[in-house]
């Protein structure tokens, strides 16, 4: 099933993200997904996230699908040229994976193979364009595909609390023009900035899923403030996490904060995307507290 069908029906679509392991044992990931992500409609599978080599996104998507979950195949342009990307898209369609999230990808320098070649033959925009071409029955070289072409729900990302929001909106528009049908956002901690962004983004008429990362500690919040693009955790949230360290460690504070953000932003967006970063077990209580 395509996630876009749910948006069309007016559903508030909730997805969560899982990261494949550095190895071939996937049982733990599947067990966690089945146990904790029951209340979630779709599961994003990251593609060598942060440029760290791991089990493939496509294989993990297939394993999740076999367990009855709805996977979203994250596809980055960092590691593959246009031939490999198109081939992997055809492979995905053949396996019945029809939700794709097109990303440029983090730079190689952020990962664990710093001497690798950064490919970036395409980028998020030209990848979306490429998917549309395949859907029209032709590859990027202008050659006809044999038989029925693939059809995907095409997602993309945007960073609503970025310090260069106008530039982000311009890129979002480019993605829409290239074929993006829905958006997932970078983690949001400043609802007022998100709402302001949505006021500007609604001109594109595409559903947007609010991005949420549950805060694990004050240290994590500070680390993200210093290092992660498009994220700013306000000081009062950091103080809240500091106030009761045990409560924060147990995940109670992080879930409370996330639930508040969701409640505040929900009227302005069309869905929710949770990046649990190992805290998949907190997802059910988050959804409950947020009233979803």
């Amino acid at each position, binding site marked *: 099933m395509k996630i876009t069908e749910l948006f069309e029906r007016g559903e508030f679509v909730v997805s969560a993200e899982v990261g494949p392991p550095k190895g071939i044992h996937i049982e733990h990931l599947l067990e966690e997904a089945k146990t904790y992500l029951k209340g979630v409609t779709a599961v994003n599978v990251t593609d060598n996230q942060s440029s760290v080599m791991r089990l493939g996104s496509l294989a993990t998507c297939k394993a999740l699908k076999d367990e009855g979950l709805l996977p979203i195949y994250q596809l980055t342009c960092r590691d593959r040229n*246009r031939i490999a990307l198109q081939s992997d898209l055809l492979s995905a369609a053949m396996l019945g994976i029809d939700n794709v999230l097109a990303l*440029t990808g*983090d*730079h190689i*320098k*952020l990962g664990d193979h710093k001497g690798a070649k*950064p490919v*970036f*033959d*395409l*980028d*998020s*925009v*030209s990848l979306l*364009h490429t998917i549309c071409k395949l859907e029209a029955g032709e590859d*990027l070289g202008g050659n006809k595909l044999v038989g029925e072409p693939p059809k995907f729900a095409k997602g993309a*990302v*945007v*960073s609503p609390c*970025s*310090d*260069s929001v*106008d*530039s*982000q909106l*311009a*890129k979002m*528009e*480019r993605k829409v*023009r*290239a074929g993006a049908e829905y958006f997932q956002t*970078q983690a949001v901690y400043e609802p007022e900035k998100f709402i302001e962004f949505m006021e500007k983004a609604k001109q594109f008429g595409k559903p947007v899923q609010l991005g949420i990362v549950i805060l694990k500690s004050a240290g994590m919040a500070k680390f993200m403030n210093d*290092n*992660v*693009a*498009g994220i700013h955790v306000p000081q009062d949230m950091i103080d809240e996490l500091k106030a009761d360290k045990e409560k924060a460690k147990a995940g109670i504070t992080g879930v409370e904060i996330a639930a508040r953000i969701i409640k505040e932003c929900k009227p302005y967006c069309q869905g929710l995307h949770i990046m649990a970063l190992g805290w998949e077990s907190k997802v059910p209580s988050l959804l409950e507290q947020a009233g979803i």
Partner: protein
Amino acid sequence: MLITQLKSKETITSLVNGKKIFIINCQGCKEVHFPEKEAAEFQKELAADGKVTGTITTDYICNPENMKLRLEKHMSEIKAADLVLVFSCGVGVQTIAEYLEDKTVCAACDSCRLPGFQGVTPLEYDCGQCGECYLNLTGGICPITACSKSLLNGQCGGAKNGKCEVDPNMECGWERIYRRLEKIGRLDALKSPVQIRNYATDDEV
């Protein structure tokens, strides 16, 4: 070595599009083969329309100090133009665009790589010698060399406080491009069709 080739007449004509132009030719650099004859012929055609406010032919515009001295004498002609059309390699165009930050500065040539010594250029500006120059879509800032991922269709989500995710001392190339386009009133350039780089160009030279 590198070769500069004139962009197609249609491409340049659509850039000029009835605007008043000031022309800068950069010739004389030993590392670059410049299409002198073709450029001169084409510039005659441009001048026939009566829209050329001035022309200079010089060398090493990639040297900012040298370039400023040459341009200063022609500032009134440059100010009278809507567009500055530069016939040079990519480094030359970038140097001019940085100096004339309020003007639309366009590349009339593509730069193609040839084996051998690449010449001496300032570190701030670099030309990828891609064969198809993107400077006219990006306000004269090269997305190939100013962006660590050489992205052609806008910034990634990796910049933090305007700095690249790869190097906190490197400004995000696409944020620079956005600011420049905003300054020269050319944000519409961001709506240009999806760009995909053609790596085959080298073989076609």
